[in-house]
């Protein structure tokens, strides 16, 4: 609410996240993952969380660390199973975490709808597949669609490249991924950036996420883990 606050530490940035919250977590694999915010959330202690993210953690860092700490009750994601998703795999197979698989484009669009105030929408994705079972269908101009509902977060934790003191954000390369959509879709959006710059030093034409969508910003050094598949 109101103007963006620039905070000194990741711990201040995640303060107040309640047990049982729905938290949108940015990143595609490790690209764009807000590592410092997630680590601070683990220290903060909120539990029984619903996490919305493209993947369900890689290795034992970031989202995987949060899962490993036992704070997550339910995951909505498009692609949980990966070569290095062993933390999630173990939790899932032992029945200690719930999973809702959502096609990647529907995941993005459901959050976009939440951020844009759309009540629900008809998507052609997943028509005739197991992921459409139990959902309302409609034929519009000869094409079949499935009714999809918005996914709204209590909080979004995202990574961006740079913020100004208004909370305007720019991203870097494919680390942008879900950030701009998640920023719109949460009641409180918390961003970690590599750099905070003074008002007036970002080109307004190049701002990707306007500060109105951003509540809290903290600066944190980018962390570079070995990317899955790197040679």
């Amino acid at each position: 609410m109101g103007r963006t606050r620039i905070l000194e530490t990741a711990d201040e940035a995640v303060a107040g996240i309640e047990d049982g919250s729905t938290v949108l977590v940015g990143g595609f694999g490790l690209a764009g993952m807000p590592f410092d915010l997630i680590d601070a959330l683990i220290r903060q202690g909120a539990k029984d969380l619903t996490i919305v993210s493209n993947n369900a953690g890689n290795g034992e860092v970031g989202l995987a660390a949060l899962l490993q700490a036992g704070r997550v009750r339910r995951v909505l994601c498009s692609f949980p199973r990966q070569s290095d998703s062993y933390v999630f795999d173990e939790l899932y197979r032992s029945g200690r975490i719930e999973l809702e698989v959502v096609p990647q484009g529907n995941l993005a669009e459901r959050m976009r709808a939440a951020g844009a105030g759309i009540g629900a929408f008809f998507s052609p994705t997943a028509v005739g597949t197991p992921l459409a079972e139990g959902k309302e269908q409609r034929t519009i101009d000869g094409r079949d669609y499935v009714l999809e509902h918005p996914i709204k977060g209590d909080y979004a934790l995202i990574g961006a490249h740079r913020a100004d003191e208004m909370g305007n954000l720019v991203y870097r390369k494919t680390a942008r991924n879900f950030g701009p959509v998640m920023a719109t879709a949460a009641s409180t959006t918390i961003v970690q950036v590599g750099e905070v710059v003074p008002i007036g030093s970002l080109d307004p034409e190049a701002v990707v996420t306007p500060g109105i969508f951003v509540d809290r910003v903290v600066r944190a050094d980018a962390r570079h883990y070995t990317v899955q598949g790197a040679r």
Partner: protein
Amino acid sequence: MVHDKPLTPDQLAAIVARDIPEGAYVNLGIGQPTKVADHLPAGSGVVLHTENGMLNMGPAAVGDDVDPDLTNAGKVPVTELPGASYFHHADSFAMMRGGHLDVCVLGAFQVSATGDLANWHTGAPDAIPAVGGAMDLAIGAKQVFVMMTLFDKKGTAKLVPECTYPLTGVACVSRVYTDVAVFDVGPSGLSVRETFGTTIDELRERLYVPLEAAAG
């Protein structure tokens, strides 16, 4: 080039690359389809889309070019070509759903005679379901090319009357590229465009689907 034997994966990738129209916007799925990029002729003007948010993606990055902020949909580090652009996920999938992408090339477990696609889940009880962008891609591109071996390791056909695996999309596949033949999926059924080391009659004996020879 005339092929009188089943194609190797690289030869198959080259055949797919040959059929991608000049200047097309193309998404190559994870795995085998990624190889198609290596066979696109220089100057083809084909623009590669990666659904994690980039157009005009370049080849895989090696050595100092590896940048953790720049990966493809398989999370492999890649490079950017001049004229590249970055965008968020909702825009990226609008490019599919909105019919802006010309071609996508996907792998498959099974394709049905009417172009249904199964490529995301074997349905095995202990498998963890993971769909990624497969369902969005299957219904999103103007043309969906599937690239697969025609038979699995046990010799069971993957081009089938009806898919037994859970579906990814209904009547969405336009063409099927396999190691032994290329099939068009049309309103009147399957037609064989090319064969590699086999004949339509031999295929008719091994497949349980009606096959026509492609016109022209």
